[in-house]
């Protein structure tokens, strides 16, 4: 079974600064998907960014980017120019591709990020 580990339960960052959230995972598969989801206080969880393991290029979505290190099984999220609206719980998630058994998302335990004015 796959496992996803987020080693930082809580983090804080000054507004306009850059912060990196860590995520490691364990799998024996060669192809899979990785995700970062964001859960703002009292609001719905939303997908922030998605990475396919067979793609070497790191995914980017505006101020959000990832550092995907396949050999190290590491998938960190970098938030640039942090904004107050980035305050949220962030979850790293793993999913096997179709045909590779269960294709349900496996979530990490989350990192609570606070952006300080």
């Amino acid at each position, binding site marked *: 079974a796959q496992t996803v580990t987020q080693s930082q339960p809580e983090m804080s960052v000054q507004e306009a600064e850059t912060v990196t959230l860590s995520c490691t995972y364990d799998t024996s598969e060669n192809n899979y*998907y990785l995700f970062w989801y964001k859960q703002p206080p009292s*609001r*719905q969880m939303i997908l922030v960014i*998605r990475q396919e393991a067979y793609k070497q290029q790191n995914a980017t979505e505006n101020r959000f980017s990832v550092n995907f290190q396949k050999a190290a099984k590491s998938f960190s999220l970098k938030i640039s120019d942090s904004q107050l609206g980035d305050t949220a719980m962030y979850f790293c998630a793993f999913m096997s*591709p*179709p045909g590779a058994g269960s294709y349900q*998302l496996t*979530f*990490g*335990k989350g990192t609570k990020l606070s952006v300080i004015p």
Partner: protein
Amino acid sequence: DVKVTQSSRYLVKRTGEKVFLECVQDMDHENMFWYRQDPGLGLRLIYFSYDVKMKEKGDIPEGYSVSREKKERFSLILESASTNQTSMYLCASSAADYANTGELFFGEGSRLTVL
């Protein structure tokens, strides 16, 4: 706009009561999910459904059941609530291509307290 609506944001129930948590999505999604979220444990999948009247057990189905009589509605049932079921419950839905996208659309959550 994408919408997943959970009928109750906050519920307080007594031990042994039967509890219904309702979820409705307006995106014509095939797949629907119920997760439980606890501090320090992340999200754990209780049940999911990939079609009307179809259901599959997730990682922690014990003590729960589900019902999906219509495509847009997925209900989570606690037959006899216990204090260890005090938690935040999240409903989510996804389109048919979920296995390739991994994108879930979540509701705002239902916080259940069992006394």
